[in-house]
């Protein structure tokens, strides 16, 4: 069931928030030993809030589609009085005295937060195989990673534990788990959603967005959480649009870019076939397919890595001597970052300006760009290398190949389930649009979702 469907059932008095939240909490506890999707479950707070949300609806006060709906937030979003660990020993006992802006806005919209989802340590990695809080498992195959860093959010939504879970995305951390777990994952335009109250991984690449079972659920969540926040200097004053697409919206006027270079290189053939099928479906719906050459994404990924390594090392510099508090992979990245010369970091930010300009020229030709989200489906837990086209690749670098650069260029992007591979694992297609083209992106994705029908895919292993 989606948020929209649950909201309709609440208003038809077929269910209420107390029932939905009780079912959610029961499922979370039942599947926690198999999935480890949560670090903290907020049973009492959620039950109390569900009762309050039901009372409001009974009295005629309706906050909108998220009213009374059980959701979760990644454990980087500060929650007043509830520990916020960032998946790290550094913050294992951290109890914030503020709510993140996203938490405030979700609560203003009536959502009921049932818990804090698991993640890759410090949101700095793509497996969510966390040495301190345990590995997150993929609901489609428990021996596979859920992706990361928002792995708990992907796992929880795919398993039906909550209707929506918030993630954060610095170099693909919403879209990778969405791709591996078969959910929708939205990274909005830079500045669209406030970063206030989120434990940062870095300063200029972090984005907040939802993982959901449908595009329209992602859109209605974005409507609830988007907007200017004076507490976040990067927060935009561009007015919030109506993001929820109409049913059966046409694609007639959409110019859909299909890359000639980069995005279909070093890709599993089954992933390529599924994503190219999305293009064919778009064409049948009336979209104009335009073959385009994209800017040098390898270069953009490289400067994105320089920026992230340096900024993350700056964020955590005061903790770098406490080596026993870090997992080996995260410590290695932080130590690399501490060695980046200041001139390289600044030059990476200068190159970023050129990359944004290069992409702006592309946005003159197309409205959206279609790519695979990840070159493969979910790797096995503990797998460090992937063999593709006769070559061996590092799992982290390969899995971030198509997503990392998007954070550099500030564009909105969304991962959409588009099929299963022969092993029964989900495949994700990525759509990009020009900065502040979030509404166009969501409309195209919703039309494709309606035609593909992949949002009905449910993991059978549960």
């Amino acid at each position, binding site marked *: 069931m989606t948020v929209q469907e649950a909201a309709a059932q609440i208003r038809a008095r077929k269910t209420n928030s107390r029932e939905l939240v009780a079912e959610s909490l029961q499922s979370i506890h039942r599947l926690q030993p198999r999935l480890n999707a949560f670090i903290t479950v907020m049973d009492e707070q959620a039950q109390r809030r569900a009762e309050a949300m039901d009372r409001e609806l009974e009295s005629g006060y309706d906050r909108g589609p998220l009213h009374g709906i059980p959701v979760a937030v990644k454990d980087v979003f500060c929650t007043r009085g509830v520990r916020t660990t960032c998946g790290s020993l550094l913050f294992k006992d951290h109890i914030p005295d503020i709510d993140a802006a996203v938490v405030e806005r979700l609560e203003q919209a009536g959502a009921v937060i049932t818990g804090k989802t698991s993640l890759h340590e410090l949101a700095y990695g793509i497996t969510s195989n966390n040495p301190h809080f345990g590995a997150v498992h993929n609901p489609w195959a428990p021996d596979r990673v859920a992706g990361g860093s928002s792995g708990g959010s992907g796992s929880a939504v795919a398993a039906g534990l909550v209707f929506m879970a918030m993630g954060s995305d610095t170099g693909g951390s919403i879209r990778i788990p969405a791709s591996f777990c078969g959910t929708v994952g939205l990274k909005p335009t830079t500045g669209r959603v406030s970063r206030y109250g989120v434990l940062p991984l870095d300063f*200029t690449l972090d984005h907040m967005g939802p993982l959901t079972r449908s595009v329209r659920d992602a859109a209605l969540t974005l409507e609830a959480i988007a907007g200017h926040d004076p507490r976040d200097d990067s927060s935009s004053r561009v007015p919030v649009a109506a993001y929820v697409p109409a049913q059966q919206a046409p694609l007639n006027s959409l110019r859909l870019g299909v890359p000639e270079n980069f995005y279909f290189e070093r890709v599993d053939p089954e992933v390529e076939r599924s994503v190219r099928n999305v293009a064919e479906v778009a064409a049948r719906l009336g979209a104009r397919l335009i073959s385009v050459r994209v800017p040098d994404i*390898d*270069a953009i990924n*490289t*400067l994105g*890595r*320089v920026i992230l*390594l340096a900024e993350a090392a700056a964020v955590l510099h005061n903790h*770098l*001597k406490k*080596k026993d508090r870090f997992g080996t992979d995260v410590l*290695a990245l932080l*130590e*690399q970052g*501490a*060695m980046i010369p200041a001139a*390289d970091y*600044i*030059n*990476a*930010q*200068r*190159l*970023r*300006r*050129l990359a*944004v300009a290069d992409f702006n020229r592309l946005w003159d030709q197309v409205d959206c760009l279609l790519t695979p989200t990840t070159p493969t489906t979910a790797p096995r837990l503990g797998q460090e290398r992937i063999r593709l086209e006769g070559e061996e690749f590092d799992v982290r670098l390969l899995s971030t190949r198509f997503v990392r650069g998007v954070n550099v260029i500030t564009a909105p992007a969304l991962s959409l389930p588009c099929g299963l591979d022969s092993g029964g694992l989900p495949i994700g297609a990525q759509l990009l649009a020009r900065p502040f083209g979030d509404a166009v992106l969501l409309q195209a994705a919703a039309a494709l979702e309606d035609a593909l029908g992949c949002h009905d895919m449910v993991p059978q292993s549960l």
Partner: protein
Amino acid sequence: MKDWKLLLEASDLGIEEPRKEQLALALASLEAAFRPLAEALPVETEPAFTVAAPREEAP
């Protein structure tokens, strides 16, 4: 190319072998990819994020 192993030794990060070797390799690989990009930068290009001028108060 920089001698990353030497730079790691000189740093105060306290990194032991064999991790020093692994980090040096990772840093060298990143430098090899990044250096040509930085060398091609036009001199007038400013960073994507600059310090904003303070707003003048109306008299």
